[in-house]
């Protein structure tokens, strides 16, 4: 639980900053039977990121990393939109897209567990080739679809709640149940701690590794459907661009170590919310949007430094001696000048 303190503090600070600039920030209204409000927007636009980050958490818990999710997001949206534009049913389109994502995830898992390639390179292959694949599916064009049913996935509402939020809640609940109420979570952590030892202890490490990569790709696939349905089009080149980096950041901010062996789903959701809130904040307080990345860099650096034990030790020791401000702030100033 203590690991969640710092991310939570950052999120609360960000929200407080918003309230300071827009007092009506917390108000949530029901209009036309739909929920409206800044908080709902954060959840709604953050939904794809949260989904991808949930999948990423499990991959990172096994000591791996999945760089290919951004490409999978693009592929899933591209295939679904292509199917719908060719008059396929919604169910067929979604099933085909998610099926392909599962296959791609299993491919990643096979490279990591079957052939024994480092996860970062194994998924780099699909990250590079997947973008090309997505553009191959769309023929280099942006496919636009006009399907109210498909629009529902990313832009629709269910009992006043945006459908995307419902999907995220369901996935999160199922994942939390599977990993925390059943033994699966412990098995994943033990594989992350030491895959070989786990195998000797009778855990099917390989099966578990393939499973988490397939799950991460499936989550990315659903996120891809959401993103493309929200804008009713598929862009093989730009859909989900850099979402893998945001997702990894969300996981790390949430206190999950990249070394594997331990994970926190709640932390990941907090991390993803921080990233999304940051984006919203920048728009709402009138900072030019082009500096979004700058703020992201500063917040990431701050959160990671605070969580680093050796930084805390050094910073506190320095403060006691009352010399120079913390190293990070000093360095940052020098960079920007």
């Amino acid at each position, binding site marked *: 639980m203590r690991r969640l303190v710092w991310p939570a503090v950052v999120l609360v600070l960000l929200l407080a900053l918003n309230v300071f600039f827009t007092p009506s920030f917390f108000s949530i209204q029901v209009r036309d039977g739909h929920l409206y409000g800044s908080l709902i927007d954060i959840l709604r636009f953050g939904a794809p990121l949260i989904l991808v980050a949930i999948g990423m958490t499990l991959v990172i818990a096994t000591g791996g*990393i999945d760089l290919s999710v951004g490409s999978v997001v693009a592929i899933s949206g591209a295939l679904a939109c292509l199917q719908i534009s060719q008059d396929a049913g919604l169910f067929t389109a979604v099933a085909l897209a998610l099926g392909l994502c599962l296959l791609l995830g299993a491919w990643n898992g096979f*490279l990591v567990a079957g*052939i*024994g*390639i*480092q996860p*970062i*390179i*194994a998924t*780099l*292959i*699909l*990250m*590079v*080739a*997947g*973008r*090309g*694949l997505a*553009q*191959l599916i769309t023929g*280099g064009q942006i496919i636009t679809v006009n399907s109210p049913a498909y629009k529902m996935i990313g832009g629709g509402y269910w009992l006043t709640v945006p459908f995307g939020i419902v999907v995220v809640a369901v996935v999160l609940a199922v994942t939390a149940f599977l990993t925390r109420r059943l033994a699966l979570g412990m098995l994943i952590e033990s594989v992350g701690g030491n895959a070989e030892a786990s195998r000797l202890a009778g855990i099917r490490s390989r099966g578990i590794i393939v499973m988490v990569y397939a799950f991460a790709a499936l989550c990315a696939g659903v996120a891809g459907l959401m993103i493309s349905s929200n804008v009713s089009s598929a862009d*093989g080149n730009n859909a989900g661009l850099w979402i893998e*980096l945001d997702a*990894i*950041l969300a996981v*790390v901010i949430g206190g999950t170590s*990249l070394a594997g062996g331990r994970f926190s789903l709640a932390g990941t959701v907090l991390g993803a919310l921080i990233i999304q809130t940051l984006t919203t904040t920048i728009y709402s307080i009138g900072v*030019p949007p*082009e*500096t*979004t*990345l*700058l*703020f*992201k*860099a*500063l917040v*990431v*650096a701050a959160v*990671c*430094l605070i969580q*680093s*034990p*050796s*930084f805390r030790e*050094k910073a506190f020791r320095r403060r006691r001696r009352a010399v120079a401000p913390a*190293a*990070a702030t000093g*360095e*940052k100033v*020098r*960079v*920007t000048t």
Partner: protein
Amino acid sequence: MSTLTLGRGRVPARYLPILVTGCLFVAMFAAGGIRYEGFASGQVILNVFIDNAFLLVVAVGLTFVILTGGIDLSVGSVVALSTMIAASLLEGPGWPPYLVIPLVLAVGSGLGLVMGYIVHAFDIQPFIVTLAGMFLARGLCYTIGTDSIPIADPAFTVFAQTRIDLFADLWISPSVVVAVVVVLVAAYVLHYTRFGRTVYATGGNEQSALLMGLPVGRTKIAVYTISGFCSALGGLLLSFYMLSGYGLHAVGMELDAIAAVVIGGTLLTGGSGFLLGTVLGVLVLGLIQTIISFEGTLSSWWTKIFIGMLLFVFIVLQRLFSGGSRR
């Protein structure tokens, strides 16, 4: 890494990946020469150098980082930032190039130094630190300006348009000379100096290197600084090539650079690889693009699919040759 053991056959195992890359390059060139008219000329290879001089310089810097077992995701953004700083200072306040160029190089090296320091001193994964650096540099680009800034400085345009004639109608650009010098200096440093050996030792086994009394911390900071410097230099070469500064230059270039290093036979776990391999990796990537443009009917996205397939083949080969050792 067990790469120092002599492998199957007479070729030491550590030279195998680089040999495979070299053979692949020759095979691709031969296949291109047979298939397309006018392909099998020296100028085609020189054009690969001319079009990829900046990538070559960046990949050389990245090789240092990857040899220590780290990774630098910020290279693409630092390249973009360098073009942006150069263009805005040359065009806005009209600074002379002899001030702008050292400043750009200093900013790049400084960014690398800071990232290296954070990686070393606070024990945060390089992946995350350089990711933050990537966001920072890209963000700084957009803060300077969101539009493309053309460069009209006479010194830059002269540098961009000069052709250095070699024998028999072959020519190169000054950028190629810069890139070749960088490669030679880097190869010397990496393979013939104490610092170079420390880089390999750190990547091979950091704990052992530390126990041997090697300056591991200083080396780690130094490699990120080198990578930052090379990225800034690559950025300058790119601004010669493009004659503009733009925040969207070199998007995704870190992937190309990493792919080049991996195809060149350097292990991402560190400790094993050669600089010549990286050069071959860049050449292979460049040749793929050349072949696709010669083919004419293939769309640009096939480049990515081919690079992905090549990565796959090379990684599986490395896996077979390095025989079971991993992490």
